[in-house]
Structure formats: structure tokens, C-alpha cells
């Protein structure tokens, strides 16, 4: 049970924090079609976070609500990977992050469709459909930017270099086949985008601890402050 709860919280936190970064893109996208698509992805992930938190609160015995998880935990209780909390860069960085994130998440959720807990399995099944679309969206943009103009190619390359140091963390303590699947998909997309797989160094953990242990980057504190500001300033309020 504690492991199940932890799984739900970790996957919920990934979704909530990635959704937060997508929310910050709102009104800043390059085209209206992308406004709609990014909001859509943000909404899907927000929905996944809500289901996962609710499940976590039910199985961990605390009875915490989705809002308790989102608004009343401290930074060190958030278990998301550092990739999702990085400050937003340009559109290419967003595409790179979303491509990496959704390729990884799709592989994770696909395996959870047959998970022992039926609620998590159902959440995963719904998530697989959604994240398949997210990955396709990111992959299409990666190819357009990589195989677009010289400038967009350079931006796409730089975007990948920005997020790549945090990729290893996604596969830390995971079954090796997950990484194999990820590398295979990324390889195909990058090849279509006429781009090489990045060779930048991994970003270190903090004495062996990473996002999944509640140890984050300095960007996370500001994200949490923003996320929780209204909720924290109004204790006891119902919205």
C-alpha cells in the first residue's frame, strides 16, 4: 500500500508540475492552434494528477483530497522528476521537454495498464490515449523544427541539450527495457528531424538524491510558491 500510494503521488506530481509549466505557456504560444493544443495537453495532465492524487489519498490511509496533495505539501514532499520543473525556455525547449516527457510517460503508463491495482490500471489506460497524442504533437514539432530552417534546427538542438542532462533520472531505479523503448522512439524521431542524439553530460543528483526523493532544483520553490499562493493565503477557504 505505501508503495502504491508513492507511485500515485510520483506520477501525479510529474503530471501536475508539467501541466504547470504548460499553463505558463498560455497566451504565449507561436500560433492559436498551439495555444489550443498546449492547453489541451495541460488539461489532460491536470486530469491525470487529480485521479492519481485521489487514489493516493484513498490508499495511504490519510484520506487526503487531491487539493491537499497539490496545495498543502511542502516542496520536499513533491516527488516529481526534475525535468518537469525546469524553468520554461523557448518553444523548442518546450517541444524537447514534452517529447522526452511524453515518450517516457507513455512507456510507463503502457506498463501500468495491467497493474495490480485496478484504479491505477484504469487511470493508465485513459492516460495512454492522451499521452499518445501528446507525444505525437511533440514529435511532429520536433521534426518541423529540426528539419525546418537553419535557425529552428539550432534552437531544437539547443532545446534538446537543455533537457537531456535530466533524462537519466527518468530511468533511475527503473527496469532497463523502459530505457530501451525510450531510446528507440527518440532515435526515430530525432532521425526524422535530422538531429543527433544529444551527448551532453548528465546533471548530478544531490548526494544520491533526485526529484523522486523530494530533492529538486532551485526553480521548484518558485513554482510551488506560485501554485500554492492563493490556497495558502486563505486557510480554511473552500473554492
Amino acid at each position, binding site marked *: 500500500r505505501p508503495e502504491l500510494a508513492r507511485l500515485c503521488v510520483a506520477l501525479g506530481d510529474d503530471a501536475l508540475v508539467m501541466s504547470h509549466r504548460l499553463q505558463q505557456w498560455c497566451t*504565449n504560444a507561436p500560433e492559436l492552434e498551439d495555444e489550443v493544443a498546449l492547453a489541451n495537453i495541460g488539461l489532460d495532465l491536470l486530469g491525470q494528477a487529480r485521479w492519481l492524487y485521489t487514489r493516493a489519498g484513498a490508499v495511504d490511509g490519510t484520506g487526503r483530497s487531491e487539493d491537499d496533495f497539490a496545495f498543502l505539501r511542502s516542496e520536499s514532499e513533491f516527488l516529481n522528476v526534475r525535468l518537469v520543473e525546469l524553468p520554461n525556455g523557448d*518553444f523548442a525547449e518546450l517541444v524537447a521537454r514534452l517529447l522526452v516527457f511524453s515518450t517516457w510517460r507513455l512507456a510507463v503508463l503502457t506498463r501500468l495498464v495491467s497493474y495490480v491495482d485496478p484504479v491505477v490500471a484504469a487511470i493508465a489506460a485513459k492516460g495512454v490515449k492522451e499521452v499518445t497524442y501528446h507525444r505525437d504533437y511533440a514529435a511532429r514539432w520536433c521534426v*518541423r523544427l529540426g528539419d525546418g530552417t537553419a535557425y529552428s534546427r539550432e534552437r531544437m538542438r539547443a532545446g534538446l541539450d537543455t533537457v537531456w542532462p535530466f533524462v537519466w533520472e527518468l530511468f533511475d531505479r527503473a527496469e532497463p527495457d523502459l530505457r530501451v523503448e525510450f531510446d528507440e522512439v527518440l532515435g526515430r524521431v530525432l532521425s526524422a528531424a535530422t538531429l543527433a542524439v544529444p551527448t551532453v553530460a548528465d546533471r548530478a543528483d544531490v548526494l544520491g538524491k533526485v526529484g523522486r526523493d523530494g530533492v529538486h532544483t532551485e526553480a521548484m520553490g518558485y513554482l510551488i510558491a506560485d501554485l500554492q499562493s492563493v490556497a495558502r493565503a486563505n486557510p480554511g477557504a473552500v473554492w
Partner: protein
Amino acid sequence: MTATVEEHFEATVAADQRIEPRDWLPDAYRKTMIRQIAQHAHSEIIGMQPEGNWITRAPSLRRKAILLAKVQDEAGHGLYLYSAAETLGADRTELTELLISRRQKYSSIFNYPTLTFADVGVIGWLVDGAAICNQVPLCRSSYGPYARAMIRICKEESFHQRQGYELLMTMMRGTPEQQAMVQEATNRFWWPSLMMFGPPDGDSPNTAQSMAWKIKRHTNDDLRQRFVDMSVPQAEALGVTLPDPLLAWNEDRGHYDFGPIDWSELKRVIAGDGPCNAERVERRRRAHEDGAWVREAASVHAAKESER
């Protein structure tokens, strides 16, 4: 031939039927229609900003999802409307240029800041409420693509309005601080909402032609009165006071009387020096300019693909 198509146009409009993109239409009608649709589209897009300001800070995940979905709908409305304008020969990129160079307007209401989460609710209740009053008649606009877009938009706006009102209801049942927040937001948005119907009829030069063309179906003052009559009982149900001491039921008119509107306020905001005009246009400009290389890459890539 020209006589025939003109007659067809006049007859179609007179019969309350719809002009379609394939039909001939007078240049003045086309221009007026493009301007009307474009300004409506711009309003949807700029209108994303004041509400978008609260998405990351929404204090419950349910409200966050509702708000994000609403702002997404506004982007969608902008898309339909720009498409409708394109059926009249306009170009979306050119219309965006007109917006960010301040040569075309958008609804002035979006030049007020959103300062608390209650503003999200009040915008749903009052601003969407006023927009619906303005827009329901447009579902019968003589221009077909616009009328059809408006049907869909009005349906979604009504949904947003109910959600906004429901948020306020919840907050009014909450802490004293939440109640005060709702009252304060109402105070800030009431008068600007009344101004959303435009200048008083005596001061509205284009109304007659627009009504003849069935682009517009009610005068500004008529719609404003309708909105006031609708809002007063809603405010009572909510438990907030509308910030107008002269607001009172007039038995003879069968309508609520209300105090004089400060038209100099509206003029100043329309002129461009309102509290947020500079930020709103600047944000839209920055997004457009920051996105230029992305759009260019997409078109270069598409050209490469079609050559392959």
C-alpha cells in the same frame, strides 16, 4: 448582372436569410463585417490574458481545470472567428498585425487588471453575461459563417457564465475574506461591464446601417438595459451589492433605473491609456514575434515535404 446580385443581397437580408461566402456582397458590408468579426476575434484572444493570469494560482485543482478549459475555449473562439473573417477575404496574419499595431480594437473590458481569484468568477458572471447579451442577437447575423460561429460561441459562453457564477456562490458561502473578495471584484467590474455595450445610442453613429444590414439587431442602450435587468436579481441571490446607489426598480418602465455612466472613463480606456492596454498588446505582440521563427520553420518544413 450587378443589379441582379445586389438585388439578391438586399432580398436575402430583407428576408432574414443568410449571406454566404459565395454570394456577392457590397464592399461596405464586407469591410464592416470583417472589422466586426476581427475585433470580436481579437477580443477573444486578448481576453485570454486577464483570466489566464490566474490559471497557475487557482486554489483548487477543479477550478484550475475549469479555468484552463475556459481560456482554451477562448483561443478556440478566436480561431473560428478569424476563419469566418477569412471567408470574407481577410488574412489572419494581417488581422493580427492590425491588433498588435493598435490599428484595430478589442473589447475595452480586457484592459482592466484581474487582482484576485474572485475576478475570475466576476468575469464569468458579469463580463461573459454582458458578452452573451451582445452576442445572442449575432447568432442571427445576416452573414452566415459569423452567425454559425456565434451559435457555438454563445453556447460555450453560457456554460462559462454559469461556472463563474457558481464559483462566486461558493465563495459567498466561504470565509469573510472570500466574501469581501467577491464584493470588491464586483465593485471593480460592474461599471466596465455596463460600458461593454458601447456608447449611448445618441452617440453611436454606425448603429443605423448595421441594423439595416442585420449585422446588429438591438441598440446599445436596449442591450445594456436587458443586462442590468438580468444582473440585479443575480446579485441579490449572490448577496453582493452592485456599486450604484441609484439602482432601483422602476414600476412604470418595467425596468431597473441605474446611475449615469462615466463615459470619459470608457473613452480614456479605448484611447489606449487604460490600466492594462499597454501590457495586453505588448504580450500579444511578444508572443507573435517570439513565434515568428517557429511559424517560418513550419512553413519551410512543409515546403520541403511537398517537394519530396
